[in-house]
């Protein structure tokens, strides 16, 4: 339902949703304790669900989105401050509590979430201007606002009034026009609708981007100082009266069921207790260390059924291809096939990547308090509070109104909780309901590696055609991904509680709308397919199995790796410089601009690959360079890797990575730089060392010695190149950077050695075997 904004003004009426000056204390909102049964959700059409102006001039802004580490806590404050003409330092931000924020929504937060608060702030600013014009008796056009003080220069002297004085003793109501709904389980219980959250509609007059004074600056996020000084209250820090600490005892394999739960030696563990429900086994204690020790003792004596339904992690590409399920198509199959046939040269290749993990430093943790009547509060660090609320209410069989999710800071999620699941929250809710006490569930790192979702393996067959002049005639790809989009919660599945079904078509990427991806090139003939794979790994007796999910830059990260890699191979086959080859195949000036600027910063010298000095033997380093580009969410990206390879050891060293981005308007240069640098490091891990390994029953890469992510020793010199534009809107930059290292480094290895690797990770052993084969 959409309604237009209306403004009425009344004095001293019962607070019913208007903007009022409220007492100048931090609202209860900033303390995580207490439950909130009286207010299930806020009415998003009411202004004060979004904004409060406090008598000390501070402004509270509310968003259903959450800070996942990419800087939203800064960007949202900057956006609100910009449109309200106040200082960003005066804005307090409340995020992600389902009962105290209005709009819900998922983790790609700025483009939609900040746009909501931007419009709300703009509507409010216009209303405040009108109020001030009346009060001061001057036309609205004669007013200026700075730092929350409205001034008029009409007549004899300057008049000025602050927002606080303007609103003191009265309230005005402003109806915010919104569309969409909060997240809710669909009628069949097969999926959660509304995860995108509500959208503020209409077109209020907003400050022109060229007039921005706050957006575009490196505003320091207050949440950073809290983290640095130890003041942040993380989910794992929450301690409620009577709370029990829980550690889970997981099955021996991803498919096993419980035969007999282990027992506890009461003398050794006097206050611990074993709790079971179906295949869910936990140990609880008021003392966390006792829970740890007792859970180990119980794990050692618990009996599980055998299961060996996994294909193992080797030859995954073949397994996925054999189980291909048709997904999305884009382009003309026949014309592309004909063009390839008529091409002077055709480059064919198959690229693939195994499962990788989100692998946060802090494992899942959650606290739940389920009351006897089903009223539940869950403290969660997920990226989708309203979706999690709907998910948990469905599991518990209670109406949505009884379920509240409060968000607190947690370790980065990198996409795994963006759909409202895959977390410890279900474990905590189930145990709290059974025990009638608040329960804190802390997963271990090993458990997190073994039982959380990963980013699915994929394989892509590609063909590129070239004419006699070395121009692309056709590009064809067939991308297949193992089951993904699986955000079911382990606790619910093991306990036999209502859960979502196994995702459709094996949860292939087609289900998410990125089934067939193209790049911003002009190629005469293109045909792309994005398919899922029906891999029956997800229906073992336990109900869990090997589960794939979205991960930072989902779908496009994998597609772009394959598409940019075949482009690099085509450029080499054409004897063309890869930078010039791309410029020759696009008409998109923003792409050309960022490619050129990035290449200049990288010190790129035009020549085709491989490097004239390339070799695949020898004990000394040989240099290579490679590049990749992408377009995502309104932002253009280019990445250039400069590497060394020592052929005899197979060791790759990334010496420099230059990453360029044109995101439209840069919101916060310092945080943008952080996102670029962090994305490069994360992407390097995928190409150089990361692989989820598993045998026939279980995941075997369950700690940091077996799942290797980059360390500070691996850090290259990272150069960040940006182009900011006032006339191109905002692009998404919280992700995408992690997509560029993989195709750029794959190309750089070819440049250095003349041997093209087509699967990752490029571990020294794998590199050595590749170089031997030649």
């Amino acid at each position, binding site marked *: 339902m959409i309604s237009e904004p209306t403004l009425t003004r009344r004095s001293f009426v019962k607070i019913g949703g208007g903007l009022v000056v409220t007492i100048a204390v931090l609202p209860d909102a900033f303390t995580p304790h207490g439950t909130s049964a009286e207010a299930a959700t806020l009415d998003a059409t009411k202004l004060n669900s979004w904004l409060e102006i406090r008598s000390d001039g501070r402004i509270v802004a509310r968003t259903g989105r959450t800070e996942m580490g990419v800087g939203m806590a800064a960007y949202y404050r900057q956006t609100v401050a910009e449109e309200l003409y106040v200082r960003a330092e005066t804005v307090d931000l409340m995020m992600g509590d389902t009962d105290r924020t209005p709009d819900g929504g998922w983790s790609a937060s700025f483009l939609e979430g900040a746009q909501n608060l931007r419009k709300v702030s703009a509507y409010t600013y216009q209303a405040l201007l009108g109020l001030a014009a009346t009060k001061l008796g001057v036309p609205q056009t004669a007013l200026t606002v700075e730092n929350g003080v409205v001034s008029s220069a009409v007549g004899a002297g300057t008049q000025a009034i602050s927002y606080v004085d303007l609103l003191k003793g009265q309230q005005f109501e402003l109806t915010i026009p919104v569309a969409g709904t909060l997240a809710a389980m669909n009628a069949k219980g097969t999926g959660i609708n509304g995860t995108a959250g509500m959208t503020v509609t209409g077109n209020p007059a907003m400050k022109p981007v060229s007039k921005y004074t706050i957006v575009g600056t490196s505003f*320091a996020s207050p949440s950073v100082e809290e983290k640095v*000084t130890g003041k942040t209250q993380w989910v794992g820090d929450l301690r409620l009266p009577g709370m029990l600490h829980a550690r889970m005892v997981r099955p021996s394999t991803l498919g096993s069921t419980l035969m007999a739960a282990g027992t506890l030696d009461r003398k050794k563990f006097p206050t611990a207790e074993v709790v079971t429900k179906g295949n869910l086994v936990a140990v609880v204690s008021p003392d966390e260390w006792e829970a740890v020790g007792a859970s180990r003792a119980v794990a050692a004596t618990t009996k599980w059924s055998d299961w060996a339904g996994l294909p193992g992690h080797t030859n995954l590409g073949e397994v996925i291809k054999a189980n291909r399920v048709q997904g999305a198509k884009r382009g003309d199959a026949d014309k592309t096939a004909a063009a390839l046939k008529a091409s002077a040269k055709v480059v064919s290749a198959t690229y693939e990547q195994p499962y990788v993990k989100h692998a946060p430093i802090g494992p899942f943790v959650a606290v739940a308090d389920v009351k006897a009547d089903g009223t539940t509060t869950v403290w969660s660090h997920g990226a989708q509070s309203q979706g999690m609320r709907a998910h948990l209410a469905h599991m518990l069989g209670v109406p949505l109104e009884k379920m509240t999710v409060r968000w607190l800071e947690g*370790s980065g999620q990198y996409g795994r909780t963006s759909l409202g699941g895959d977390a410890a929250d279900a474990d905590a809710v189930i145990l709290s309901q059974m025990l009638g006490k608040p329960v804190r569930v802390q997963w271990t*790192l090993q458990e997190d590696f073994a039982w959380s979702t990963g980013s699915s393996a994929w394989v892509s067959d590609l063909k590129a055609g070239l004419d006699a002049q070395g121009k692309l005639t056709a590009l064809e790809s067939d991308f297949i991904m193992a089951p993904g989009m699986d955000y079911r919660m382990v606790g619910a599945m093991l306990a036999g509680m209502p859960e979502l079904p196994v995702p459709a078509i094996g949860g292939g990427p087609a289900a998410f709308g990125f089934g067939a991806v193209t790049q911003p090139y002009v190629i005469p003939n293109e045909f792309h397919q994005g398919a899922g794979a029906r891999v029956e790994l997800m229906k073992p007796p336990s109900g869990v199995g090997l589960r794939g999910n979205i991960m930072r830059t989902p779908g496009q990260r994998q597609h772009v790796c394959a598409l940019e890699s075949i482009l690099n191979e085509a450029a080499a086959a054409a004897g063309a410089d890869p930078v010039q080859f791309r410029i020759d195949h696009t008409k998109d000036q923003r792409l050309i601009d960022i490619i050129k600027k990035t290449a200049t910063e990288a010190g790129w010298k035009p020549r085709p690959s491989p490097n004239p000095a390339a070799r695949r033997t020898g004990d000394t380093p040989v240099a290579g360079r490679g590049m990749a580009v992408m377009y995502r969410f309104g932002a253009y990206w280019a990445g250039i890797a400069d590497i060394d390879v020592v052929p005899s050891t197979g060791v790759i060293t990334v010496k420099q990575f230059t990453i360029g981005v044109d995101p439209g308007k840069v919101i916060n240069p310092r945080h943008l730089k952080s996102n670029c640098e962090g994305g490069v490091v994360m992407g390097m891990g995928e190409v150089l060392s990361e692989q989820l390994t598993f045998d026939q029953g279980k995941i075997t890469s369950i700690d*940091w010695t077996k799942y290797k992510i980059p*360390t500070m020793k691996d850090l290259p010199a990272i150069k960040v190149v940006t182009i900011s534009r006032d006339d191109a809107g905002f692009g998404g930059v919280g992700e995408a950077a992690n997509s560029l290292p993989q195709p750029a480094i794959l190309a750089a290895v070819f440049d250095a050695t003349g041997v093209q690797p087509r699967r990752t990770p490029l571990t020294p052993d794998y590199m050595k075997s590749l170089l031997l084969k030649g």
Partner: protein
Amino acid sequence: MPTFNLTVNGVKKAVNVAADTPLLYVLRNNLELSGVRLGCGVSQCGACSVLADGKEIRSCVTQISRVGDKKIHTIEGLPGLWAAKKGLPADKAASTLHPVQQAWIDVQVPQCGYCQSGMMITAADLLTRVPEPTVAQIKDAYTGGPSPHLCRCGTYSAIIDAVQIAARAMKA
């Protein structure tokens, strides 16, 4: 349960816990110092690092019975450590940040921030031993020891910048 007398962030505390309890749990649960973070629990990531007599240790694998009379500092105690070093009066000490913390804010190092407590502890340890570390020495400090310090958000280059800024501030 046995009693252990600890000196944490300059304050003497007595706790009654099992002798094999890791220092991590004592700090977080008994002393409510939540700046110390649980990461891997097996000394592979460095999120739980604290200072023991000024040297970094992994609190997740340090049994309370092994702490003895070592003076423990968490990030909550870094301001006090700096104030003591500079001989600041108590009222000033309360509003002072350790130069490492200030540098972390100036550079806006944390992304999710979960690992940064341990990262700052390493910086405080390093800068006591090596007042002007080179980039290579900084990389050694974060990758030597029981395990590399891991950051999944990839803040390593921001950390290097911040350590160098803190070094300059501590020298001044």
